């Protein structure tokens, strides 16, 4: 019961944040809306016993990544008015029609065939950091190591694109 109430509250928060993120004209509001969504997702992780993931969600996404976003917004400048004119005139109606079709598809599927074929095993989900630690370095060792490649790309790519000026000199 408590979980249901919490779910409803934070589902509304998550949707509100997401809509704000897309809708707000001021990019700072967009970033804050996204942050609300991130926090709400962290609550969902907790209610699904993903404790470690929830903490990571708050630390990395709501913390570090949001800082990055705010820096980028400041970089571009919040003083600029957003230009909302579009080169393709029918974009918005088309998007709405497609969205409605997608929603209809989800509803039909949900009513008719939306059952998962797999019944979960009886063991309870264990999302504590100890459980994650012991599985991350055993079963999931290779993806973990390959993540280091992603981080190298991030550093090299950032420095190649942002640190050098167009002529290849440091600046």
């Amino acid at each position, binding site marked *: 019961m408590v979980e249901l109430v919490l779910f409803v509250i934070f589902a509304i928060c998550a949707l509100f944040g997401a809509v704000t993120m897309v809708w707000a004209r001021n990019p700072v509001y967009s970033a804050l809306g996204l942050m609300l969504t991130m926090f709400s997702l962290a609550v969902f992780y907790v209610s699904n016993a993903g404790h470690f993931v929830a903490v990571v969600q708050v630390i990395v996404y709501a913390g570090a*990544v949001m800082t990055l976003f705010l*820096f980028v917004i400041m*970089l571009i400048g919040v003083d600029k008015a957003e230009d909302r004119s579009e080169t393709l005139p029918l974009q918005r109606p088309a998007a709405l029609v497609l969205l409605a079709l997608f929603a209809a598809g989800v509803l039909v599927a949900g009513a008719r065939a939306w059952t998962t074929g797999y019944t979960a095993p009886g063991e309870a989900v264990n999302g504590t950091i100890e459980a*994650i*630690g*012991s599985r991350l*370095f055993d079963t999931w060792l290779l993806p973990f190591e390959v993540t280091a490649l992603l981080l190298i790309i991030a*550093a090299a790519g950032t420095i190649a694109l942002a*640190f050098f000026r167009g002529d290849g000199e440091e600046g």
Partner: protein
Amino acid sequence: MALVDYLPIAIMFALALVFAVVSLLLSRLIAPHDPTPEKLEPYECGIVPLQDPVQRFPVRFYLVAMLFVIFDIEIVFLFAWAVQFEALGWPGTIAVGVFTLLLVETLVYAWRRGALDWNIPHRERYRRVVAPEIEEAA
């Protein structure tokens, strides 16, 4: 762990919210409201600002934030290893060692590239304007 264990966090959030709302309300209610043109200036004494203070940040902030995210993620993984340090034993240590080595390499690379160097524009300006005969040190 159960959902109940998160109650202290929820209470803390509630307290923070209450504190913010109550302080704003109280200051609205208690504080005397008597504006004069001088009080509405950004600075009551000093130069009247001529332009909007909202400015663009230099791209360097982005660079630092990106590097911060990278090493933040590294810490998250290290944390997961540290709590299981004994159970994982040498294989875990080697696994984390390889990962950390790759990231230390990234740090050395970023450092030596000068990505953490804040004052390059000043140095360059100095070189160009003040002392053009000095060659930029590598």
